């Protein structure tokens, strides 16, 4: 196990390094002069060049990369062009909001997906199975903005139960109110994948010899399900949840824009639109690092749950 963890961490560091290069390169080759973008089309060439020099966007690429990376390692992504204050402040604030939203989504979708999928597996081929599977699939293939708009129309405009958007502030209950609609939108998207995985895992476990052993031992049905089926069916489900986490983070973009929710997604979108390069780089890097950490955590969790990995199986 220790070897595995060490190797996995090593891989994570390498991935981070590659990510930093990609992020840097992409922003460096973005078309247009940064100084021109900031000063506008009517500024004279001299002041544009001067600004470019001040910002350090003219030097050799390698030097610029090392300067950026050495600061980035210490959590300093420079100052935003637009707001003239440290990128990190914005990123950390948006990150908190985004994580809150992601957490709420998971709290809703994980139990829902696991229970839904398991029920479908137990009723395999029957009406309930069909309903759960088809609902999940339909929701998964509907774009976020469609589901989001329907949600807004229904719960905010028509029924007026919840606000149509905004950023969570104040008491927890108020925050939840703001977050609920975007979280439900994301839940709708993720439920299909999750329940399908949970269903497949449960079916495999139900058909396994060890479940037969447990049943023929004379264990009551609910004990067989809880102790022998669920335990094994959750493994692949967790893997999917983890891989969907990075999707969740990335997919926040559309949802956050739609609900005008001040999270990382909205931050990236704004930075890209405004050519706020340091902000863009910082935000994208953090999103990438976060996604990577999620999958690292997921892998470690899976390894820990599976004794064959944890204890190092003999070949």
């Amino acid at each position: 196990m220790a070897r595995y963890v060490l190797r996995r961490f090593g891989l994570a560091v390498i991935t981070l390094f590659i990510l930093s290069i990609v992020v840097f390169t992409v922003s460096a080759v973005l078309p247009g002069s940064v100084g021109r973008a900031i000063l506008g089309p009517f500024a004279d060439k001299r002041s544009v060049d001067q600004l470019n020099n001040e910002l350090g966007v003219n030097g050799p690429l390698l030097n610029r990369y090392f300067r950026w990376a050495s600061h980035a390692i210490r959590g300093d992504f420079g100052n935003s062009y637009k707001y003239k204050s440290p990128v990190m402040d914005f990123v950390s604030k948006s990150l908190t909001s985004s994580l809150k939203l992601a957490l709420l989504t998971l709290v809703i979708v994980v139990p829902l997906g696991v229970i839904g999928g398991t029920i479908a597996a137990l009723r395999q081929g029957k009406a309930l199975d069909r309903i759960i599977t088809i609902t999940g699939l339909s929701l998964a293939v509907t774009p976020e903005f469609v589901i989001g708009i329907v949600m807004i129309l229904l719960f905010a405009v028509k029924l007026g139960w919840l606000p149509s958007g905004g950023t969570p502030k104040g008491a927890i209950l108020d925050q939840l109110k703001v977050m609920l609609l975007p979280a439900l939108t994301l839940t709708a998207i993720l439920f299909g994948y999750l329940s399908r995985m949970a269903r497949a895992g449960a079916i495999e476990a139900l058909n396994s010899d060890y479940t037969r052993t447990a049943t023929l031992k004379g264990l009551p049905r609910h004990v067989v399900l809880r102790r022998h089926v669920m335990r094994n069916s959750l493994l692949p489900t967790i893997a999917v949840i983890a891989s969907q986490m990075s999707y969740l983070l990335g997919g926040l973009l559309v949802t956050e824009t739609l609900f005008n929710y001040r999270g990382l997604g909205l931050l990236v979108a704004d930075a890209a639109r405004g050519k706020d390069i340091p902000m863009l780089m910082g935000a994208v890097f953090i999103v990438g690092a976060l996604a990577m950490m999620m999958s690292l955590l997921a892998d470690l969790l899976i390894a820990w749950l599976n004794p064959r990995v944890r204890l190092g199986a003999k070949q």
Partner: protein
Amino acid sequence: MSTPALEFNDLQLAYMVRGQAREVLRGVSFAVQPGETYGLVGESGCGKSTAAYTAVRYLPTNARILGGDVHLAGRDILSLDKKELQNLRANDVSIVYQDPGQALNPTIKVGLQLMEAYQLLGQSKHDALTNSREILRKVQIADPESVLGRYPHQLSGGMQQRVVIAMALACNPQLIILDEPTTGLDATVEAEVLDLIRGLRDEFGTSVLFISHNLGAIRAMCDRVGVLYAGKLVEEGRAQDVFDNPQHPYTVGLLRCLPRHGSRKSAQRLETIPGFQPLLGAPLPACVFVDRCPLATDKCREVAPQWTQLGDRKVRCHHVDRVHELVSSALPEGTPSTVDRSSTPMLVLDGVSKTFHQGGQAIKAVRDVSLELFAGETLGLVGESGSGKTTLAHTVLGIHAPDQANTITFDGKNLKPGTRKRPADQVRGIQIIFQNPDSALNRRHSVRRIIGRSLRRLAQLPHSEVDGALQEITASVRLTERHLDMRPSQLSGGLKQRVAIARAFAGHPRIVVCDEPTSSLDVSVQAAILNLLGDLQHDRDTSYLFISHDLRVVRYLSDRIAVLYLGRIMELGPAERVFDGPHHPYTEALLSAAPSVDGDTRERIRLDGEIPSAVNQPSGCVFHTRCQRRLEGDLCSTVEPPLTPTPDGGVIRCHIPFDQLGGQPVALRS
């Protein structure tokens, strides 16, 4: 008479497939008396496993009981409600089946799984733990404490099966059902598990329903036996009587398919049972066996035979008085071996070793193996799992590279490691037949395409000649035109193996590696495949490297046999001598482990423990830790014996002089 532990009364059971009832059990009646061991035998598809699962009412949802009833411990199990069924399973009956690795939950420690069975009976955690420890000792696990704390994957196959048996014994059931409990285990492990079951049965007085396709194991274990064919019992009687003196033509045929009494390909062909078992749900002829029976008359087609009682034997046949006619039928001639040992050998291995490196450890799978294989010769490779026989065969095939280059010579030329580096004629020259044709054949391709592709790729025939060659090769493996357009899934196991054989032979190979080619087949099909392999060898002068755990099969087909242990050759010599002796103590133990369908008269030689790890091999003679003939003093444990030539041109690796080595295990000699 007391109540039987298990009683089937005219049970009829069908599976519903697309709205149609396909009968699997067509009126099965038998009873297992208290303390008795009853065996059910029959080929796959005869319904023996369905019978086992009916006894615990664990049936797929499409199963329908059409008639009859089943009583377990006096209770009608088909009428129990959910709760009663649960209680019955918890208290009165246990089942052990094939593949113990799958039967245990991989994510729960062995101890907790075992304790579950006791806690179910209402015991406290503490009592359950104490009892679990106790029962593990009963199944001869020396160190229960450490086993309790382990996960299933950390135990060997034999240990896993012990744990499953312990779990089955936990409730002290009246009946234990064993469904192929030793299939997939090594002969030595199988023998231990059977010994264990026998001992526990006698100690606890448990009744046993024993299901196996291994007739030797059935004979060794059972008091009475029932022969099932197409969902009907055709013969029932005391196990010994049925096997020694079968009275139903099917039983006679089944027993004659086995290579027995040391039979060899050069002396006789194996008998087969022509035709096929009626398909599930197919309308049955009056007598179920009539289409394959040499004694069949018009009466058999018109009147279903009832039981004929012969003493304590029952036979479902109209012609019990004519069964002796079957026995006298002349056996067809075999294919005399024409191996020329003065010629250049087809394959020469000169000090081949193969070491795998894993996690910083060196696994010495094959150590310094030297042997020769001549044209038209079969060399049998024998040994427990972990002895290196498959690794050796794979090294010859080029799947693994040997540790030192230039140690393998094929047809006078050095054989390069790796199939990609070998010239086409070397690749074509060495082919393989696998154990499981299912996974070896592309299920999406037709038989014509599978064989045709091999003809083009291996034989490198132009398109115009493929058709002709296809006809020829299919005819030689006894497939018909009709089979060519089918896909593998539409063929039976035996037919699939024929396709696999045709594929291997497409490029006129000089050597074919046969890796357990008949292990997944029924005995009647096995006989046909062995005959076919013998014929092909005779016609084409092909050499075989033949791997099988079934020693009688190896003996039947092999000219010479190499016995491997921990990657070393312990002995190599003519098949008769290796089997009849004098032979290596390891060979002796292997031979005595395999239960014989003819009965064992000799005390079995026990091999203690399992084959040692290939990482930390024992010092001196690698076999000394388990050898029953280890010499006084420390010669065996310090000095590895050299391979000594034997008078018959073989070699043997033992400190004991050749003429003092053991021989003549009764079971195989007869």
